[in-house]
Each structure stands twice: as C-alpha cells, then as structure tokens.
C-alpha cells in the first residue's frame, strides 16, 4: 500500500511540488479552540498521518495541540516549505511579507474576502500577488480550502481524513468538492491521489494543477470542477499533452444564458461560454460530465479499470429488473449488448438454473450459487473475443445473513462464516478477471460498503455504484475515452 513518507523527488518542476509535498509546514490560524475552522484543519495535519514538521504560529498561545507555537513565522527554526494561512484577511499581507523575509516560498491562503467580493476584494488580492512576486512566493488561493496528498498523509482541508489513498486526482474551483465530498468518496470507494482547491487562482491556477496531476505517477485519472478558466489557451495546450495517456473528466458550470452577449451576428449571439467550453473540452480530448455524480463516477472507473477495445458489453445479473435497466441504458449510452452465439448459449444453459436467461443479458435468477455468478460465467464469457467488458449486478454479501441472523433469533441456524468465507473467496477470484482479460468490469448494487462484499470489490479496484444506470454511464465513459485515445493516435501527426 501507499507509504506515508515525505517525498524528496520533485514531480515536474511545478509550483505545486513544494505545496503538495512539504517537508515542513507553518500553520497560521489554528488554536486550541475547535471553534476556529483553522484548528480543524491543523488537527487534520497533525493527526492525519503527515510525517513532516509542523510549526503552529499564533500571536498568544505558547503551545497548540501539544506542539510548540511561534509568535511569528520569522521565529521558526527553519523556513518552512509551505505556510498555510487561515487568518483574517487584514493580517494576510503582513504574514506573507514575513514569510518572504523568512525564506518561505510556498503558501496556501485559505482566507476569503478577495476577488469573489468585488472590485475592493480584487484590489486586496492584487496586493497579495505583488507581495508574493516580490519574494518569489508561489501560492494557492486565496479563498480555497487547501490540498490533500494521500501519498504523504497530508490533508490541510476542513473535513477529517476519511479518504483513502488511491488514483483519482482532483482540482476544483469549489473547496467543498475536495473536502465535504470526502465521506461521499469513502462511501463510493473512491481513492484520492491528490486533491487541490484552487480558490480564486490569483497565482497558481487550474492550468498548473492539471499539469501537476498529469505528471503525477500516483494519479491515473483527473477530475476537474471548473467555473471559469483564467488561461483557456494554455489549459488546452497542457490538456492535449495529457489526455492521450491519462484520462481527464471535467464539469463546467456557469455557462448559462446570463453569459451570452448582445451581438450583431448570429454566431456572436449563439456563442455563450457553455458552447465555447464544450468545444474546448472536445478539442483537447477531455470528457465532459454534466453532473457531479458522473464527474466522480467516471474518474473512479477510469482510474481503476482497463479500457474496453470496443463497445460490446456483457450484462450479467441475478435479477431481471436490473438486467433490463442495465441493457436499456446501454442502448442510450452507445454501448451494445449483443446476444451470444447459440453454442455459447448452450454452454450457459448447461450450468445455469432452468429459470435463467442465457442470451445477454444473462439473468441467472435468484440463487446462492456464488461460483456460478462470480467465477464460471465471467470466465466463460469475458474470454470471448466478441465482447469487450462486463456490467454486473448480483452482489449479496454477508450483510444479508447478518440481518437474517438477528431476525431468526436462533430459531434456525444460519452458517454466516460459511457464506462469508465463500463470498470472499469468489470475490478474490472475481477481482482478478479484468486484469486477466484486459476487459473492464463495473458493478452496481443497492447495498453500499456496509456489505463486506461491496467493500471488498471496491477496495480491490472494481467500481460498485449504487444504481445500474451509473454503472452503465461509467462504462460508456471508458468507451468514449478509448475512442479519444484512438483518435489521438490516428491524427498523431497533426496534433
């Protein structure tokens, strides 16, 4: 698993290198009172697994959470790699000056009250940029929530470290989507590599984040939440270098009719920002998501599953409704569910119950033959050249027996351990299959991680979504990204 060590290597010569991988942090704005939001964030840093040095800075406290506190950054025993500021905005310029004098060259300015507040805020923000430029400081924010680097156990954000280390990298213009989403990610089994809240992008912006995540080996898929790019042309240039080898999913919000301009030409009046962003995303091979659900669902699948080589999907289920819903949504999403050859259907019929449907979707109908649904049928069908991936419904793990045991109250004997061990054994085999055939498997299940089987599959790389349609849309995203990659190869000489 991931080692929680402070890294010495620099990923890309990016301004984010030090900010995401600091060996030491000066924290301005935490105290011994949880009423300060800064205290919550400092607690995450100190107790979240981060192994670097932490220097709380406070005008009055001598000690914070058991660590020696300093009156000013100028008093620190060394120039910290990064200063995190959660202090009133009147105090930020002076603090930033002092960071500069001390030799601190990276900052995360959480404090709000800048450009987002109008022209006066904009002036204050420009002042911060001036100070930073003077001292060669690169900074994130202001008006952001900070960063998460799961590789070194660092979380400067507000929500506790519920996230697990993984391979989805996020850059967001909303802080909420890299901190308040942490419980949501945990429930979805989505593991984070790095998460960056860019805030007002006064210095480091979305382009820098994309470039960093593109070069970061831990990140296998990138999710972006965008309300407006400051440098769209540079963004495009950077994205075009990344998307041929690493998938990028983006959601753009804010391009409503309000953004449209009065114009003499049809073209001018029809070209709202939403249309332009749509064109830009397509032009650089970025998958556009229309909902946050899709944004994170797709990034998860793209980070963890192999790509299908074509769009012919097997639907395997132990229940008719989910099988039909899955196949129906496949048609809408540009995926095909072609029926099996008669010979294959015979083979399926030979091992399934009489009530089963062997065509595709395969519906084995409700039974407890775990070998059949988790091993025999996936092996039999995914080895066929005519099929490119599998959508699976039929996880009924130990939780069901646990509930029954409570209800039965010893009136009948239910061998929980037997089912549990059997389930985990077949799941162990099941999670190997995508790698074995280089074909994706995506599951849906109405039970979440409270079911041990769901948690096991998610923790071993198989996405399990809480509804069939979400599994289908994630599979369709894999297929679309495959086409994007192929198009890049075809037009390689002109890109």
């Amino acid at each position, binding site marked *: 698993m991931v080692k929680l060590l402070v890294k010495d290597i620099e990923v890309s010569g990016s301004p984010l290198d030090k900010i995401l991988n600091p060996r030491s942090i000066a924290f301005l704005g935490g105290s011994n009172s949880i009423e300060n939001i800064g205290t919550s964030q400092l607690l995450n840093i100190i107790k979240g697994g981060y192994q670097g040095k932490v220097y709380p800075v406070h005008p009055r406290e001598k000690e914070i959470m058991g660590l020696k506190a300093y009156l000013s950054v100028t008093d620190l025993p060394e120039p910290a790699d990064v200063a995190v500021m959660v202090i009133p905005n009147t105090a930020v310029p002076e603090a930033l000056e002092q960071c500069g004098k001390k030799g601190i060259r990276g900052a995360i300015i959480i404090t709000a009250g800048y450009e987002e507040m109008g022209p006066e805020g904009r002036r204050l923000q420009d002042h911060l940029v001036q100070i930073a430029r003077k001292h060669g400081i690169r900074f994130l924010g202001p008006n952001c929530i900070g960063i998460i680097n799961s590789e070194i156990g660092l979380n400067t954000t507000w929500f506790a470290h519920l996230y697990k280390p993984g391979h989805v990298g996020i850059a967001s213009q909303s802080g909420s989507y890299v901190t308040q989403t942490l419980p949501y990610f945990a429930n979805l089994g989505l593991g984070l590599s790095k998460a960056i809240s860019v805030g007002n992008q006064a210095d480091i912006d979305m382009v820098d984040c994309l470039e960093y995540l593109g070069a970061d080996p831990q990140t296998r898929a990138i999710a972006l939440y965008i309300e407006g790019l400051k440098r769209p042309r540079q963004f495009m240039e950077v994205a075009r270098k990344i998307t041929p080898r690493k998938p990028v999913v983006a959601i753009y919000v804010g391009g409503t009719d309000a953004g449209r301009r009065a114009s003499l*030409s049809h073209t001018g009046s029809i070209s709202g920002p939403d249309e332009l962003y749509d*064109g*830009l995303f397509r032009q650089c091979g970025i998958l556009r998501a229309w909902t946050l659900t899709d944004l994170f669902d797709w990034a998860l699948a793209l980070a963890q599953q192999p790509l299908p080589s074509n769009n012919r999907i097997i639907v395997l289920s132990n229940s008719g409704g989910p099988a039909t819903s899955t196949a129906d949504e496949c048609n809408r999403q540009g995926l095909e569910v072609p029926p099996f050859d008669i010979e294959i259907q015979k083979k399926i019929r030979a091992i399934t119950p009489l009530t089963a449907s062997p065509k595709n979707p395969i519906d084995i109908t409700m039974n407890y033959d775990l070998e059949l649904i988790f091993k025999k049928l996936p092996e039999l069908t995914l080895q066929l050249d005519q099929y490119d991936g599998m959508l699976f419904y039929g996880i009924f793990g130990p939780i069901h027996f646990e509930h029954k045991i409570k209800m039965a109250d010893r009136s009948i004997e239910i061998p929980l351990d037997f089912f549990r061990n059997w389930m985990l054994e077949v799941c162990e085999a099941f999670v190997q299959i995508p790698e074995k055939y280089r074909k994706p498997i995506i599951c849906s299940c109405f039970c979440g991680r409270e079911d041990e089987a769901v948690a096991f599959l998610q923790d071993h790389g198989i996405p399990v979504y809480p509804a069939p349609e979400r599994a289908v849309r994630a599979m369709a995203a894999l297929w679309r990204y495959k086409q994007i990659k192929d198009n890049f190869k075809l037009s390689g000489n002109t*890109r």
Partner: protein
Amino acid sequence: MDVIKKAIEQGRKMLSEHESKKLLAAYGIPVTKERLARNVGELKQAASDIGYPIVLKGHSPSLAHKTEKGLIRVDIRNEQEAIEAFNEITENVENNEKAVLVQEMIKGQRELVVGLTRDPQFGPCVMFGLGGIFTEILKDISFRVAPLEKHDALEMMREIKGHKILDAVRGMPAADIDALADILMAVGRIGLENDDVKEIDINPLILQGSKPVAVDALVVLDPNGA
C-alpha cells in the same frame, strides 16, 4: 486587408455583404459570383455576365439580416424581372447609394452555417452548424478554438445532431467534407490574422450538389478588439 482598413477608416462596425465575401474569397472560401450595380445599365451588364437566374440584394455598408427587411429577390429569370426588382429594392434601401448586389442563384436544399466569434479569453472560435432559419431555432452547432487542424474541423462537423445532412441523402450527393474542412480552417485563420474582425457569419453556406458556397456573409468589426 484593404476592405477592413477602409471600413474602419469610415467608422463602420461591419463590412457589407460584398466586402465580406471579398475577405472570405481572399482566404480561399468559395463565394457566389456577384457584382454591384448602381443603375439599370450596370444591372443589365452584370446579369448577363453572371447569367440568369440571378438574385438581387439590397446593398449597404450597414445592412445585416436583409431577409427580414424585404431586400432580397430570388430566382429572377429575365431582364424585365430584374429591372422591376432593382426598382423595388432601391426604393426600400435607406441610403443614398441606391445600389444592388447582382448574384448568381445557388441551387441547393442544404443550408449550413459557419461562423467566427472572438471571446476575450478564448480568442477566435469557429462555429459550424445547421444554417438558414434553423441556426437560431435549433442551435445545432459546435465550436472549436482557432487555429483548427483538419481533424478538429472533421470532428466538429460530426458533432452536430443533424450531421447526417452531410451524407448522401434523398438523391443528393454527400457533401464535400474536405472543402467544408478547408472553409472551417480558413475562417479560423481569418480570426487569427485579423484582430479587427470580431465576428463572422457565413449563413447560409449552401451545398450546391456536394460543393459548399457562401451565399450570404457578414463580418462584424471591432477596431479596439485586438
């Protein structure tokens, strides 16, 4: 470009249709054969040079959306019809110039739109979509940021919902996709090389058989835009 320079010197915010097409033609975009006529003598000469049937359009340096103002007569088949149309149009044009644009009649049922818009951050962006009256009703369009590579042009044509109109349909030949791609790339170049051009409409761009021809065009200027 001379036409742009002249218009800016005259304090105009747009090029006339005729000037717009000169600009397009300079970038290799196929446009209608056309000529200005200020009197009946010039009209007769232009019509016989171009050949009937012809189209007459009111000409003015500050005239957009001519259809709505009743300043277009199509399918004019002889000299008598031409003179009648000339007189009607020149009565309606509200300027001193009293000129009409004599234009070849392009026959084709498929109308497309190609446009350019200059965004303060994105820079010049090229639009493709269904043209004529459908442009604003259906908004079946796609955009790319200039400069466009050929694959960008091909992709944006496939992206619109009505892309099958470019195939061989109802006895009509498939559109000349390469010629269309050339037009899209050329429009992007116009945007990149002429900072004063704020917007362009080529609407309709009619498929005559398989070949696209710019039938109407409007170039909007913004001398301070650069």
